[in-house]
């Protein structure tokens, strides 16, 4: 079966990003496919490369990267939500004249259409947070 995953909550405010990771990993290990993982609302900060949790805390954004590399997952961050919360790709930052950018490798920034498309083209939408 093919799943679309939607995550809505800030990783510092809610375990949703981590629960979604566990679900996605279990789905892939059971032989299912993931159409796309879409980060919306507060969850977009998962994709920031400039978060520095203390050394004894896991970086959940990095865990997603590892899973994405292993299974060639598409991790998509909503552009409108990301701009509101300070997550920028190099291209978007350059286009709008910002000097800094912080989008992690393995993530792409795109529009909400990607969420709708994923939910229409997969068998189940599973939302977290």
């Amino acid at each position: 079966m093919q799943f679309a995953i939607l995550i809505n909550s800030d990783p510092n405010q809610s375990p949703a990003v981590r629960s979604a990771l566990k679900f996605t990993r279990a789905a892939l290990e059971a032989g299912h496919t993931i159409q796309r993982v879409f980060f919306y609302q507060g969850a977009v900060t998962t994709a920031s490369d400039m978060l520095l949790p203390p050394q004894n805390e896991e970086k959940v954004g990095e865990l997603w990267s590892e899973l994405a590399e292993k299974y060639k997952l598409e991790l998509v961050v909503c552009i409108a939500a990301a701009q509101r919360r300070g997550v920028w790709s190099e291209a978007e930052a350059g286009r709008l004249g910002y000097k800094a950018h912080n989008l992690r490798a393995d993530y792409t920034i795109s529009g909400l259409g990607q969420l709708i498309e994923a939910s229409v083209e997969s068998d189940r939408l599973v939302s977290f947070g």
Partner: protein
Amino acid sequence: MATKKIMYINRVTPHSGLTAKESLDVVLIGAAFEQDVALAFIDDGVYQLLKDQQPEKTGSRHVAKSFAALGDYDVRKIYVEQESLDERGLSEADLVDLRHENPEDDYRDTASIRLISREKLARLFGRQDVLFNF
């Protein structure tokens, strides 16, 4: 692209953060995909539709105003749960009047809001292909 039944369920108050606005953004962008779309307002979500809101007093966005444009976006089914209104002492007269041109009735100007009982709406949830909750 296949056509699916998509329902957006709104359950939060309109002025406590970005959720109501970010939910509406999904609906507006989703409208371009020509799916079978419905909105549902339940629990505190019914406050989003109250008329005479003045969000400029607190600097928040006027989602109730924007809902009035949903007809232009071909979003015609807007369900409001009767019990959620009752529990808050509200009635349909307290809500914004949302309208669309009904393609099945010679594009006659038609009210978009449909009051529905909790039980019927719960059954309707089960008849959707995709549920978005905000």
